[in-house]
């Protein structure tokens, strides 16, 4: 049910992406943890997953949890407890049993597009291997690969870096400043990678939660430097949302690529 809804949403995003170069059309996708700093031998992080305009209000639709990957402090996967999905949000618990940092991610990868056959416009969806199955007579083949990552981080006890290693696929944020050791008034540096390489010139949108209670969402527009890094400056403590998209045009018969990243970070008061 939710998988289908999300695929349709993804399809729309790509369809729009094909005509609009700006990434601003998308709703915001987020994983919002109850807190990012936990203590004790064991704890539970509770996480909401939603797509919305307002941060962090569940008002558009729930995020499907089919491709939820939680990496524990030892680099091993952690099994969440899925509570379920309502109309506007999905919810799950993450059992924290090992000391260190957990990376909680929703990822999706897929190819999508259109072609014309006998004057009829056809929607297509599949994998790279299935591109060859597009009928030989098809014209105006427009296929784009979409790869997205939505994530957040929590720590039990002393933070560590094992779960923060890049996967090398799509756009990723590799924290230089630890993502669960963020304090308002202190600069936080984040490095962005595209397919594992520093992504220079990426436009990052950085927004404080609570947009519903402001006239202006106050989004900061940042651009990554040559090392793929941006510096986040935060005055007020709270949950923050961050988003970026990297598009690569298709060429030589290869599909275009659209890689997006959204993340939620918590800044504590000093």
């Amino acid at each position: 049910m939710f998988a289908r809804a999300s695929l349709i949403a993804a399809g729309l995003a790509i369809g729009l992406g094909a005509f609009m170069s700006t990434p601003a059309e998308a709703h915001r996708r987020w994983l919002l943890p109850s807190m990012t700093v936990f203590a004790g031998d064991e704890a539970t992080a509770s996480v909401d997953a939603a797509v919305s305009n307002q941060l962090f209000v569940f008002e558009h639709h729930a995020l499907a949890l089919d491709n939820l990957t939680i990496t524990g402090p030892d680099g091993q996967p952690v099994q969440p407890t899925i509570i379920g999905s309502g109309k506007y949000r999905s919810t799950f618990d993450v059992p924290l049993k090992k000391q260190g940092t957990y990376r909680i991610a929703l990822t999706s990868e897929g190819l999508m597009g259109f072609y014309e056959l006998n004057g009829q416009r056809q929607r297509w969806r599949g994998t790279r291997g299935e591109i060859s199955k597009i009928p030989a007579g098809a014209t105006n083949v427009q296929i784009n690969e979409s790869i997205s990552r939505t994530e957040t981080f929590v720590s039990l006890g002393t933070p560590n870096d094992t779960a923060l290693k890049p996967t090398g696929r799509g756009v990723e944020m590799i924290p230089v400043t630890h993502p669960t050791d963020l304090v308002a008034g202190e600069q936080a540096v984040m490095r962005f990678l595209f397919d594992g390489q520093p992504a220079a010139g990426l436009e990052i949108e950085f927004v404080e939660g609570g947009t519903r209670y402001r006239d202006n969402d106050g989004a900061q527009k940042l651009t990554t430097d040559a090392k793929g890094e941006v510096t986040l400056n935060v005055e007020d403590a709270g949950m923050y949302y961050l988003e970026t998209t990297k598009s690569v045009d298709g060429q030589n018969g290869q599909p275009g690529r659209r890689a997006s990243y959204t993340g939620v970070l918590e800044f504590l008061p000093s």
Partner: protein
Amino acid sequence: MRKTIAFVATGLIATPAVAGEMTVNVEIPRLRVAEYHKPYVAVWVENEAGQAVANLKVWYDVDMRNAEGTKWLPDMRTWWRRTGRTLKMPVNGVSGPTQGPGRYALKFRDGVQPLGRLAPGAYKLRIEAAREVGGREALAIPFQWPPRGTQTGSAQGQSELGAVSLILKP
């Protein structure tokens, strides 16, 4: 020969053994609130770089089932970030149960845990309090170690802490 060695050894011990005594007076204020819980309080010493060099006292709900009292330790967020998150609670000689409103005198001796032996230099005594369904407050009192004569310092809390003072004696 033996005598010489004994003499040298005594000299080595005597030179760095700067006796020092530290008294920390902490006041926990009486608050008129609908739901009152005794605050979590941490007292520690940090060096000029802001690094914690001695954890002196941590008052928290040590007796809760399944060590659930550790859950709120990060509410003392400065202490948590500087040192608390690296500790396995409870810490012998440091942690103790929460205390209600009143004045408390905590004594520490140079060379004895939990103060241990501080290298000569500038330090800050840090006191942080956080209360369930309440607020959080952190104070600092700078001091020089070892003390030359009796030295005192103080800080005044506004919400979760009352008067806090530090008395150092050689």
